[in-house]
């Protein structure tokens, strides 16, 4: 497996500009000859599709939702980072780079992280020009808030709906290109396979979710912007439809999958209430700016929060991490919440919850100020939990949220399969072992607006346009396999619904491959997953036919992929015999209960090569180099 990341030479601050100077481009008159497929229409997909279409490329964009505007980027709440230094508080590209690299626990590729920090400011300019109504101060200047894991205020926001507004901005650019005929938009259409000829990605096979028709689409390059795989846990903050199918099928066709065990468990979600709960709702991390997190000092304390006096409250983050307090990075906050709950101090009916309290913020800053900042989040909480956070503390608990792992990509965002690119959450590149708050949208938009439209030219310019059409036999073969799989799913004589198996998989994964992991549990999971997969293929019932709108069939296909992917995730978690960022192996912790990295043996990206379902995959390494920022133990205490 070729893992040359193609990182440009030179000092880190010059790499990106130098790279643009040196790579091959496609000229404006040639661009209309090239067809590019983009799978997904979230922040990464919509920004890439609109940018490339405006440059002149012919773009086909696919999404499984009924409209491109509904991709799950829309649910991002808190904000987007940019090293603007508007607050004059010492922010810089270097500091954003440093925070991201440190937050990722030194498991990211330096050159990519620097580029991300460097492009961050242009994203804000781009979005504002599209009419994204960012929060403004009274003089009309952009406002900022701070986010976990950093010492500066660099987060731009639109109330608690930043993702929605940024996506609507990208989506408006996409709408314009669709109207102009530059983008062919395929809604309610799902990728079911990637087609490879002579080792290069040449197109995809999709299913029209309304009619069930299976069709082939050829292109000169395929870009996956299909998001993350966190729904492997069933209960997560992801939308119900989020899935691993596109990246998993690409992986099975030869693309290396990097760091699948890195999954972020977000510290501030509303705790689960019952077995049939379909998702966990996130409360924006920005709440930690003003809310104080605590549990009763006494285990199994059943008093109401208002009845617990100040001295009997354990503000565990403030006590354990005096410098960052409630603003420690997400993984640290999540693990500490699990720790106090495991010690019996958890609150709520399940004991799996901690308080997030706004009492002090309201009395210090005034109810009006707090209302402006978080009013809509408070309303959202009240709607779900039927408690008013203005009067009684919220209850929160960590929930699987974001996948740092994804398809391996080089500096040009190309996977190990030539012609196949991955952007946004679908790739592994910028967040290391843990993503900082307000960085996901930044990465999606940097990739989509500013990186891929340029770097894809380096690949396209080396190959003539339209080499292979969709009547090539490789497409027929892929279509036949898709038909066969669909027929197989529909003909299983079982009686259990797909959801039942997804719940089983989710429970197994959260227990053995969740907030903390150990070798024994992972080995156990590696035995149980194939058993569960076999039972699924024997006992599931997928009603209806393949020639109609069939949501059970959609879910069954996605779960079938999760049941294979889960095994890879556990292999990776077992193989990485160290703790880093969100990957917390119980065997490796510092005396303070922090992650204990092993830089000697594990300062690399794990890139997995598929060997067949149920077979031990092969792990390759991309060594990580630390030139701009020396390796250091992460410490948020002092």
């Amino acid at each position, binding site marked *: 497996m070729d893992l040359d990341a193609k990182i440009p030479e030179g000092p880190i601050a010059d790499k990106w500009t130098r790279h643009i100077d040196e790579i091959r481009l496609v000229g404006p008159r040639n661009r209309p000859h090239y067809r590019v497929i983009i799978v997904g229409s979230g922040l990464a997909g919509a920004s890439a599709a609109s940018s490339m279409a405006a440059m002149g490329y012919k773009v086909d964009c696919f999404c499984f939702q009924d409209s491109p505007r509904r991709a799950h980027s829309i649910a991002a709440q808190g904000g987007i980072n940019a090293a603007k230094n508007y607050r004059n508080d010492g922010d810089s590209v270097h500091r954003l780079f440093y925070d991201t690299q440190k937050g990722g626990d030194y498991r990211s590729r330096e050159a990519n992280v620097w580029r991300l920090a460097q492009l961050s400011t242009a994203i804000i300019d*781009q979005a504002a020009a599209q*009419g994204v109504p960012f929060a403004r101060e009274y003089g009309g200047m952009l406002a900022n808030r701070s986010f976990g894991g950093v010492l500066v205020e660099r987060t731009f926001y639109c109330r608690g709906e930043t993702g*929605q507004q940024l996506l*609507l901005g990208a989506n408006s650019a996409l709408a314009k290109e*669709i109207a102009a005929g530059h983008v062919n938009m395929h809604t309610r259409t799902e990728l079911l396979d990637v087609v490879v000829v002579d080792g290069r990605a040449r197109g995809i096979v999709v299913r029209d979710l309304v009619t069930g028709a299976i069709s082939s689409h050829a292109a000169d390059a395929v870009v996956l912007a299909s998001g993350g795989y966190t729904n492997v846990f069933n209960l997560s903050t992801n939308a119900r439809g989020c899935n691993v199918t596109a990246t998993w099928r690409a992986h099975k066709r030869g693309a290396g999958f990097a760091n699948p065990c890195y999954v972020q468990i977000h510290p501030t979600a509303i705790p689960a209430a019952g077995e049939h709960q379909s998702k966990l709702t996130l409360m924006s991390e920005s709440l930690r700016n003003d809310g104080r997190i605590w549990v009763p000092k006494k285990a199994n304390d059943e008093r109401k929060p208002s009845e617990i006096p100040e001295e009997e409250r354990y503000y565990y983050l403030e006590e354990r991490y005096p410098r960052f307090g409630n603003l420690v990075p997400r993984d640290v906050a999540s693990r500490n919440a699990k720790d106090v709950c495991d010690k019996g101090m958890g609150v709520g009916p399940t004991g799996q919850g901690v308080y997030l309290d706004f009492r002090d913020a309201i009395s210090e800053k005034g109810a009006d100020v707090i209302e402006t900042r978080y009013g809509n989040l408070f309303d959202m909480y009240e709607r779900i939990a039927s408690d008013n956070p203005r009067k009684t503390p919220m209850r929160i608990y960590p929930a699987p949220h974001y996948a740092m792992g994804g398809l391996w990509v080089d500096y040009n965002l190309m996977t190990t399969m030539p012609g196949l690119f991955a952007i946004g959450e679908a790739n592994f590149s910028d967040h290391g072992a843990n993503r900082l708050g307000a960085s996901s949208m930044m990465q999606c938009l940097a990739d989509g607006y500013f990186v891929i439209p340029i770097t894809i030219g380096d690949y396209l310019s080396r190959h003539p346009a339209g080499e292979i059409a969709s009547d090539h036999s490789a497409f027929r073969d892929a279509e036949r396999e898709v038909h066969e799989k669909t027929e197989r799913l529909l003909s299983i004589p079982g009686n259990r619904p797909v*959801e039942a198996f997804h719940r089983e998989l989710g429970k197994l994964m959260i227990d053995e491959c969740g907030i903390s992991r150990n070798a024994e549990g992972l080995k156990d999971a590696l035995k149980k997953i194939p058993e569960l997969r076999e039972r699924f293929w024997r006992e599931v019932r997928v009603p209806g036919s393949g020639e109609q709108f069939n949501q059970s069939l959609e879910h069954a296909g996605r779960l079938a992929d999760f049941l294979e992917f889960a095994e890879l995730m556990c292999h990776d978690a077992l193989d990485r015999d160290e703790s880093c960022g969100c990957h917390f192996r119980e065997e490796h912790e510092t005396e303070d209960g922090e992650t204990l990295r092993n830089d000697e043996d594990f300062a690399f990206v794990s890139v997995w090569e598929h060997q067949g379902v149920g077979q031990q995959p092969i792990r390759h390494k991309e060594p990580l180099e630390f030139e701009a920022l020396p390796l250091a133990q992460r410490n948020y205490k002092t």
Partner: protein
Amino acid sequence: MKFTLEIWRQENGEDAGSFSSHEVDDVSPDTSFLEMLDILNEKLTESGGEPIAFDSDCREGICGMCSLVINGEAHGPKRATTTCQLYMRHFPDGASITVEPWRSGAFPVVRDLAVDRSAFDRIMRAGGYVTVHSGPKPDPNDVPVNPEISEKALDASTCIGCGACVAACPNGAAMLYTAAKVSHLSLLPQGQPERQERVQKMVAQMEEEGFGSCRNYGECEAQCPKSISIDFIGHMNRELLRATVIEPTDLRGEMKTQ
């Protein structure tokens, strides 16, 4: 809790469709409306039936994918709430609940409770954008915006595009949806260059899609899960008037006379 559900079933766009009756039992009050339908669907699957098709995705009230007319109201009885954030505790135990898809000629049924809302996307494509390519742009602080104006623009652009306004309107009008986007962009400095053209094109597309016209019933605002104000419809009407009557659209013609 126990409920009797009268649910609209329709095989596809051509099928006539009809109501069918279903019982659900042992539902916790903290179950969301869609989770209650999930439970019903699992039971239908286990007993050899076909589950009910309905759209949903984020299940946190922001993607706009979920729909459903519940007891005659878009997104059900609770104000400012999408169906996915409606909980069974909002219904009396033992209640009989009628569930229908969005009813509008412009939103054909896909299957059961799922409808095709692509008409909304076509309205957006007619002009719901600012024409800017990706690339270097001026610093946003070079274009100060009064925060009250910015917040008002956000009040409009918070629309999730679910289509409840159409389903709620006795005339099936899409005025609130269209007005939200027109207002959002016409309020901000970035939206000024295309201001006249935008409102004209979007309104023309809205009419072409077959949506009804506005009679000021106000049901759209009342049933909008994001509480988008009907004032924006007035705003759009003024924009349209301004574009067609007050402001000349041939700006270059004016320049030539100088």
